[in-house]
């Protein structure tokens, strides 16, 4: 057997689709690898996986993987995915979205998917910018960072995405990074196993735009930044608060139980038919 990346290539639509469109060093490809490996580990059949995405660099992912793939409109993949899941609850529905896709135009679907608690696994690639359209600031761009539409520094605050998801009702919320790829794979695995809505926010990097505009260096530099700023939640207690200030926590941030929508709806069906 020839030497190929052990797991991932079996899931790729290699025919004509590669090399992928992403810029050199972009984190999205790393995230894609982690997702594939998690699915492989879970021994899910490719036929039972549906990957749904919106529009954005990150949302280009479905094109490359050999699942049932649905590349939708900007901001709305969770709404499409809700229809997919309702129609066939036995399918594993994984939603790939970006910070712009999920939180700018798609913010409403995001909070409602959390609230409704329908069994979707949402992987949000947070590169702090609109990559696809050329580096405008996004709802996760930090205060005073530069975007092409914030030439004098962004005056809006970034969402704390995970906090927003928890407040909206999501029962499983995790955060990983493109750098911590082994941990990421595990988080995706856990999220996929979770019955109910699960979010994995992945801190990723866009060297071409965000990195360049904010002078944060190339992909390697940006990955080093991730390495230096991620604090595993397990270790958070041991870190002095002042050291936590500009850092972010990774790992499973929230994991509770709440009735899943499709299962609840089965009860509606039972009740309706009982009354009939």
């Amino acid at each position, binding site marked *: 057997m020839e030497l190929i990346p052990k797991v991932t290539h079996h899931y790729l639509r290699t025919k004509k689709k590669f090399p992928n469109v992403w810029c050199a060093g972009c984190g999205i490809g790393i995230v894609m690898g982690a997702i594939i490996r998690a699915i492989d580990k879970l021994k899910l059949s490719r036929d039972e996986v549906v990957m749904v995405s919106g529009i954005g660099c990150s949302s280009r992912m479905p094109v490359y993987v050999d699942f049932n793939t649905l590349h939708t409109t900007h901001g709305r993949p969770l709404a499409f995915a809700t229809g997919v899941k309702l129609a066939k609850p036995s399918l594993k529905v994984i939603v790939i979205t970006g910070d712009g896709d999920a939180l700018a135009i798609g913010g409403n679907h995001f909070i409602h998917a959390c609230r409704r608690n329908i069994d979707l696994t949402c992987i949000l690639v947070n590169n702090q910018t609109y990559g696809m359209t*050329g580096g405008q600031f996004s709802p996760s761009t930090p205060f005073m960072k530069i975007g092409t539409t914030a030439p004098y520094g962004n005056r809006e605050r970034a969402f704390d995405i995970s906090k927003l998801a928890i407040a909206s009702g999501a029962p499983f919320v995790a955060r990983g990074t493109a750098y911590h790829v082994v941990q990421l794979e595990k988080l995706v695995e856990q999220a996929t196993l979770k019955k109910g809505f699960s979010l994995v926010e992945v801190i990723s990097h866009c060297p071409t735009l965000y990195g360049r505009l904010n002078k944060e260096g190339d992909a390697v530099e940006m990955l080093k930044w991730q390495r230096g700023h991620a604090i595993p939640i397990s270790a958070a207690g041991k870190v002095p608060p002042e050291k936590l200030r500009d850092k972010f926590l990774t790992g499973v941030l929230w994991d509770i139980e709440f009735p899943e929508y499709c299962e609840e709806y089965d009860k509606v069906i039972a009740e309706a038919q009982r009354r009939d």
Partner: protein
Amino acid sequence: MDKTKKSIETDDRYEIRLSGSGGQGMVLAGMILAEAVGINDGKNVVQTQSYGPEARGGASRSDVVVSSKEIFYPKTIKLDLLLCLTQEACDTYYQALKEDGVLIVDSGLVTQLPAREVHAFPFTQLARERIGTPVVANIIALGTIASLTKIVTKKGLLEVVQRRAPKGTEEKNLQALEIGFELARKKRARKSH
């Protein structure tokens, strides 16, 4: 009903394509060329570009149409001059060149040349070796165009590069331009031998 133009003559178009891949600065080169030709040399000019289906990466091209008359159709039809900084660009676009059109390639990156007269120069290599960064290959190529053809004046190019170069890079860009002017001069010299 207020704006009626009466000239019947079609324009004496000269069509240029600068082609390469994403990071090679073809759009910027097109803008500089167009500004030099249009604003500094005072001709009519339209610059357009073609974006791939993806926002980044892949082929990149920038077209410049020059004329002393009004330019109606803004895109190129049949090229008078084609610059190619990648093999892929050369393969894709070379058919669009007129029989007597000028083909200029980066000799380091375009190795399989079509069977026709070609001006080949190692733009990228020169940029790396003499300026220390490959990113000014586009500017060298512009210099070469100015020197090989009469479509743009050196003066015009110099002025625009001076004006447009990001702060702190003026020097490098002007140097690159000079290398370009030089290159073609040598080549012409060689040819006349």
